[in-house]
């Protein structure tokens, strides 16, 4: 397969999972497409600096959205590999300068992988009065057992918003160990982190979302939606630490188990400042009978009802 064919194949899947048709084609598109450790394509516009270099087993990328730049369209990052085996380590350093607004969509595509390591080690620095959303969607093969190691450290400045969204619902999860650590250090900063994972077969899904609210009046919502079927196992470790005056946080975890799957959740709410308030809700269990019966009474089969419920939860 030529590099051009690899790029076309990765883009086709990215478009199927949320990228707009012109995301990798138009003159004002901002993107990077990486296969393994090869940068197949990249495009930038004034106001956004992308410096990417190939390493032995992946890439090292630094992306900066300059002060006051508001990007009207998402930046698309496509990291993938079309082979069965291998490894890809992505080192990323994202800076959103003061007053900038941007949405990044990361497409992690491994449609044929059976034995693969995909690691992301990223830092995100958000200045003041800025807004940044990082949405990561994975596409894996149905049979593969990929090791997925996304590790991110995020710092959110005054009056800024950070939205982090991680979705791994298509294909097998494999062995996921997600570790997000966010510090909302700026006054009145806001953090919203959502993780959606669908484990199958003997997948293992470990999700660790930690948010420290050290900025006065900062706030956070951490949501985890994990569905575990067959003999998969899931562990959610979530923590919000209200460490400043007026800090507000809420942690919301729902794990659904089917078959012989097992789930565990350890939501930790901590108020290390006396004027902080952090709440949580966690539910683990099978899908409630009344939800299934409610849909069956409309003529859906039991399996169809479960599909509707699971799809909604992971949407």
């Amino acid at each position: 397969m030529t590099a051009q064919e690899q790029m076309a194949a990765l883009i086709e899947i990215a478009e199927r999972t949320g990228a707009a048709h012109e995301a990798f084609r138009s003159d004002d598109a901002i993107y990077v497409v990486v296969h393994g450790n090869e940068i197949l394509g990249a495009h930038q516009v004034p106001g956004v600096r992308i410096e990417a270099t190939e390493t032995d087993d992946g890439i090292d990328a630094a992306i900066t959205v300059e002060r006051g730049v508001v990007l009207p369209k998402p930046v698309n990052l496509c990291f993938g590999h079309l082979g069965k085996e291998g490894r890809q380590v992505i080192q990323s350093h994202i800076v959103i300068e003061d007053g900038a607004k941007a949405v990044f969509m990361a497409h992690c595509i491994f449609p044929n992988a059976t034995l693969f390591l995909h690691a992301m080690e990223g830092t995100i620095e958000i200045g003041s009065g800025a807004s940044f959303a990082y949405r990561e969607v994975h596409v894996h093969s149905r049979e593969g057992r990929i090791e997925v190691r996304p590790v991110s450290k995020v710092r959110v400045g005054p009056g800024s918003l950070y939205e982090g969204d991680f979705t791994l619902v298509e294909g097998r999860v494999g062995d996921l160990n997600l570790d997000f650590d966010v510090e909302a250090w700026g006054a009145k900063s806001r953090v919203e982190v959502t993780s959606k994972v669908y484990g199958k077969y003997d997948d293992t899904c470990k999700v660790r979302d930690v948010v420290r609210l050290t900025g006065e009046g900062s706030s956070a919502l951490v949501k985890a939606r994990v569905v575990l079927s067959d003999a998969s196992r899931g562990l959610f470790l979530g923590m919000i630490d209200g460490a400043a005056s007026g800090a507000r946080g809420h942690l919301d975890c729902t794990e659904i188990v089917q078959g012989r799957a097992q789930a565990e959740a350890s939501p930790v709410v901590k108020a290390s400042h006396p004027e902080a308030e952090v709440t949580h809700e966690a539910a683990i269990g099978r899908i409630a009978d009344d939800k299934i019966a409610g849909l069956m009474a409309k003529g859906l089969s039991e399996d169809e009802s479960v599909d509707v419920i699971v799809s909604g939860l992971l949407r």
Partner: protein
Amino acid sequence: MTALLEVEGISVAREGKKILNRLSLKAEEGQITGVLGRNGAGKSSLAYAVMGLANYRPQEGRIRFRGREITDLSITDRAREGLTLAWQHPARYEGVSVRDYLRLSSKKAEEKDLAEALSLVLLDPRSYMDRMVDKTLSGGERKRIELASVYLMKPRLAILDEPDSGVDLLALGEIMQVFRLLAREGRGVLIITHREDVASQCDRSYLMCSGSVVLEGTAEAVKRYFLSQCEPCQEPAALEREGCSE
């Protein structure tokens, strides 16, 4: 003439306690049939038994729908035969929009049909179509969406479990018109309620107490009896002593 629904002497026990006791009733096409009773009389259990919920399968008796015995059919099969239930407390579905939820009832429904159904239950389609059927809806809003869903399904028989709960009094009259509309289309409606003013708007009513039907008659007659005799709710033995069993 064969009734649309015939419940013949069903008994249901849960955890060793009989919750329906040799109960019989009928519902006809083109009619609104009421089942009136105090809280705890077994009205919702009757609805669950007719709909086929796993824990409410009759130990005796049978249920016939359009002349066919359905006692052993699954909920899905009963629904595909044209039977449905609007629950007293409808479940919530995270991530499912009102539009998608309504479409589950009628795959062929067009946007205008969905909008019409919402309007009938006094919800503005522009405000509600893209909302989620989750905890952001109030109990009353969720209830109305369930009724809109039943309307769209165009069932042969709709069982409505306490359709008035969570719905304000002013809206109730208009929502009753939706049920009347279903009946006018030749469909059957079985309304389960503890409110005599709701039951009095039915064509025919049954009075339930302690898992049994204790009276059948015109809606007005059942309402009169209910108001004069049925408070507080008594055990069947006491009712028998007072001569008000079937």
